C-alpha cells in the first residue's frame, strides 16, 4: 500500500479542435477516497481522465492537474478500463506483470501470485484472456492495477460490460482492494456512483454539479434504501441534463 496518497485538483477548461468540451471547472479528488464522476455521453468524462493520466494528445487543456503533496501526477497513476485492454497473446500472469516488462524491470512474481490469490485468479494464472469470462477478465484488470501499486487509480467505466450480478460483485472487490488509494471513477451507472462514491459529481456542459453521497460506508449494499434513493436522484439529474443537451 502506497504511503499517504495525495489529493488531486483538476482546474481548467478543455477544447478539442477549437470547440469547447468542458469548463472552466474545478474538480477536487480527495486523498484516499473514491470520487465518482457521472455525466451524459460526450461531455468529456473520459477526456478528463486521460488528461489526469497524461495520455491525451488531442485535447487542448487550459489549466493544470496538481497533486496536494506537490509531486508529479503522471508516473503515480494506474489506469483501469474495461477488460478490453488485456493483451490476448499473454496469459493472466503475463498480463498482470506487464508493467514491469514495459519498464524493463524484473517482474515480482511472488507478489503477482499473492495478488492473483487475493483476486481469486490463482486457478486461471496460465489461461489467456479469451478463455475467461467477462467478470474474470475484469478481475485480471483489477489485479494488474493492484500490481502497479500506484497511489492514484483512474477507473474508466470499468464494469459497464458486465451483467448486473457480476458488476455488483466487482464493485465490492474493487472497493475493498483499492481502499486507501486516491480513486477517480468515471461511470455511466448511477447505482455504481451511489455505492462507491465518497464524493459524487455530475459533469455537464455547464460545469460540475455535486451530489451528496449516502452516509453508509463504501461499498454500500445494493439494497441500502439511502443508496437507492441517491441512485434515483442521480438518474433524475442525468435525465434532466440529457434532455437539456
Amino acid at each position, binding site marked *: 500500500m502506497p504511503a499517504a496518497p495525495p489529493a488531486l485538483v483538476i482546474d481548467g477548461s478543455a477544447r478539442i479542435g477549437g470547440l469547447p468540451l468542458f469548463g472552466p471547472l474545478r474538480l477536487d479528488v480527495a486523498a484516499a477516497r473514491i470520487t465518482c464522476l457521472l455525466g451524459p455521453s460526450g461531455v468529456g468524462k473520459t477526456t478528463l481522465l*486521460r488528461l489526469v*493520466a*497524461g*495520455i491525451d494528445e488531442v485535447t487542448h487543456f487550459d489549466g493544470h492537474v496538481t497533486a496536494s503533496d506537490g509531486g508529479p501526477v503522471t*508516473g503515480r*497513476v*494506474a*489506469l483501469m*478500463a*474495461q477488460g*478490453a*485492454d488485456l*493483451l*490476448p*497473446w499473454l*496469459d493472466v500472469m503475463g498480463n498482470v506483470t*506487464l*508493467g514491469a*516488462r*514495459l*519498464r*524493463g524491470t524484473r517482474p515480482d512474481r511472488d507478489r503477482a501470485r499473492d495478488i492473483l490469490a487475493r483476486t481469486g485468479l490463482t486457478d486461471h494464472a496460465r489461461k*489467456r484472456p479469451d478463455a475467461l469470462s467477462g467478470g474474470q477478465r475484469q478481475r485480471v484488470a483489477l489485479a494488474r492495477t493492484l500490481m*502497479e501499486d500506484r497511489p492514484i487509480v483512474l477507473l474508466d467505466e470499468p464494469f459497464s460490460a458486465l451483467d448486473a450480478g457480476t458488476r455488483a460483485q466487482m464493485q465490492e472487490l474493487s472497493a475493498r482492494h483499492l481502499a486507501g488509494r486516491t480513486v477517480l471513477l468515471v461511470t455511466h451507472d448511477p447505482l455504481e456512483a451511489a455505492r462507491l462514491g465518497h464524493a459524487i459529481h455530475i459533469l455537464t456542459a455547464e460545469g460540475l454539479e455535486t451530489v451528496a453521497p449516502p452516509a453508509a460506508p463504501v461499498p454500500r449494499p445494493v439494497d441500502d434504501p439511502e443508496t437507492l434513493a441517491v441512485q434515483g436522484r442521480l438518474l433524475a439529474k442525468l435525465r434532466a441534463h440529457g434532455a437539456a443537451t
Partner: protein
Amino acid sequence: MSRLLPIAASAALALGLWQALVVLAALPPFILPGPARVAETLWASRALITEHAGITVAEVLIGLALGAVLGGLSAIGLAASPAARRLIRPMMVFSQAIPVFALAPILTLWLGYGLWSKIAMALLIIYFPVTSAFFDALMRTPQAMLDMGRVMGARPARLMWHIRVPAALPGFASGLRLAAVYAPIGAIIGEWVGASKGLGYLMLLANGRAKIDLMFAALIVLAVFTLLLHMGVDRACRRWLDGKAAG
C-alpha cells in the same frame, strides 16, 4: 480424411475435363497433351525436372526469407518513425506504379544470370505486400492497449516490442501468406528473362522445342510447389501465432 476427399474429387474432375477436351476436340499433343501423357513425361524426365525445380525452390525460399525480414524491419521502422513515414512512404507507393516485370531485364543485367537476379525479383514482388500488411497492422494497435502501456511508463521502443509488434503479428502473417503465392511468380519471371537453370527456364526451353508435355510437367510441378509453400507458410504462421498467444 474428410477434408482430403473433396480435394481429391476436385482434382479428378479437373483431370477428367482436361482429358475430355483433348479427346473431344481431337487436339494434337503438340498443342495440348492429355494428362496421362504429361504424367508419363513427368516420370520419365523426373531427374531433369527435379534438378531445375531445386534451383527455383532455392530462389523462392531465399527470396521469401529475405522479403519477410526486410519487409518486417521496414514496417517496424516506418511505424516507429513519423519522419520515415513522410519521407519513405510516398517513395514506396510510387515504386508500386512501376511494373515489377519491367525491371527483370535490368536486374539480370546488374546481378547476372545466376540465382541472385531471381531472388531479387521474388524479393521485389513480395516486399511491398509484406511491408504494407505488417505496417497497417502496426498502425492499428487498439488505443486501449497503447494507453495502458503509456500509463505504465513504457518508452516507445518497449511499447513497440511488447505491444505493437505482437498485436500486429496476424497482419504480418497475412502478408507472408500472400508472399508465398507471389514469390514463385517473381522467380519465374526472372528465369524467363535470363537463366540457364530453373523451372521457368525449363518451360521456355521445352516450349521452344515443341515439347509441350515437358512444359506442362514443369508447370504442374511449379503449381504443386506453390500450393505446398502456401500451405506450409500458413501452417507455420498459425503455429507461431498460437505459440505466441500461449507463451
